């Protein structure tokens, strides 16, 4: 990614509004995952949810993304409940979960093209560039079923480079990436928050020193 591109992004992200969870509580199978949790996510934040397996990180992430409505409390975006202004909110955040939404019979390029179809301003050349950036140059036209686990993950992550959204919500994005890939992704996260973007992430991987990094610890309330 060239500096000019991130500068441009930085301007674009000036309109980012706060994402605030007010006293959210969630229980599953009579076990309380978190209770009266409040969380404010602002421009330039990089927030990592940490906690042991089964602590409720994925659950909290999906709830903040507006994908899960099975909880108490409210999540506000720009002062409004995200379910109310869902369409606007959705255009401002990118959610990448465990499942990659990649069609195995299609090529990386075709998959990426589908991902960005809501953003008409994204150009075809950007897609090629993004695939090259995730070191998939030469694989643009290979059906995804023939890619290795890490390569498929990279296709999903190429979206980070092309969708112009200020808020990224990522669930264990480091899965299956090799060292170089991990370094690349950390770099992307750092650049994104530096450019005024915001990242909400779960990972068991310890992120290297990015100044904006904050932890939210979820414990096991047995």
């Amino acid at each position, binding site marked *: 990614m060239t500096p000019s591109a991130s500068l441009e992004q930085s301007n674009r992200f000036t309109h980012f509004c706060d994402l605030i969870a007010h006293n959210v509580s969630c229980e599953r199978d009579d076990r309380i995952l978190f209770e009266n949790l409040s969380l404010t996510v602002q421009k330039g934040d990089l927030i990592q949810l940490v906690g042991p397996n089964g602590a409720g990180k994925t*659950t909290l992430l*999906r709830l903040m*993304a*507006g*994908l*899960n*409505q*099975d909880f108490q409390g409210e999540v506000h975006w720009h002062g409004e409940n995200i379910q109310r202004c*869902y*369409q*606007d*909110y*959705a*255009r401002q*955040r990118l*959610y990448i*979960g*465990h*499942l*990659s*939404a*990649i*069609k*195995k*019979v*299609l090529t990386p390029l*075709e998959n990426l*093209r*589908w*991902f960005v*179809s*809501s953003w*008409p301003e994204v150009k075809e050349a950007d897609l090629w560039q993004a695939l090259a950036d995730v070191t998939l140059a030469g694989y643009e036209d290979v059906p995804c079923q023939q890619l290795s686990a890490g390569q498929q993950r990279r296709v999903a992550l190429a979206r980070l480079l092309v969708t112009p959204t200020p808020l990224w919500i990522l669930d264990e994005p480091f899965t299956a990436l090799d060292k170089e890939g991990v370094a690349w992704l950390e770099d992307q996260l750092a650049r994104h928050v530096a450019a005024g973007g915001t990242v909400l992430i779960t990972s068991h991987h310890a992120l290297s020193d990015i100044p904006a990094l904050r932890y939210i610890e979820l414990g096991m309330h047995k």
Partner: protein
Amino acid sequence: MSLVTATIKRDLVIAARNPGEWLNPLMFFLMVLALFPLAVDPDPNFLAKIAAGVVWVAALLSTLLSLDSLFKADVEDGTLEQWLASGESLYAMALGKAFTHWCISGLPLTIVAPLLALMMNLPENAYSALFFSLLLGTPILSLLGAVGAALTAGVRSGGLLLSLVILPLYTPILIFGASAVYHAGIEMEYLGQLGFLASFLCMAMTLTPFAVAGALKLNLSR
């Protein structure tokens, strides 16, 4: 290009890339037709009597079978999650998906049905009724089927559950469709039945997408 058009295009590309997706329903249709004479009685006069019903039952079953994969793949690989995350209208997606399904299953079936009806010794004057009843009826099957497919998409061995949900909804269409063909065969008026099918189709087009959108959301909240 909006996400809906992109999805329709993508699904058609996938279907073109594994031709099984649209050829198999056709083959199944053909084979169910072949089972009947084998199991019942190959006498041509006898077959002529049951032809209308058997062709319609076969069309219905073959649509039913191709429904299973309509949303399942999308749920499993996370495409649906991305749809919901995108904030675009699920109503439009439901319509788009039903349309793709019809292109892949109902349309080819309508085109070859008259040919196969030959093998069942269908009376000559029933051919146009067969064609038009299928042309009006199969989109309804796809639309109603989408409701069932959405309801059962997250369920293991959903294929059969799907048939349970759907078959009762299909019976009126079966009755009107088969009786149009039967009446045409014995040289009676059949426009009434086609009229009913047409009005069902309008209703299905406006109403079922709501149900599909609702059902799809159920698959996601975890």
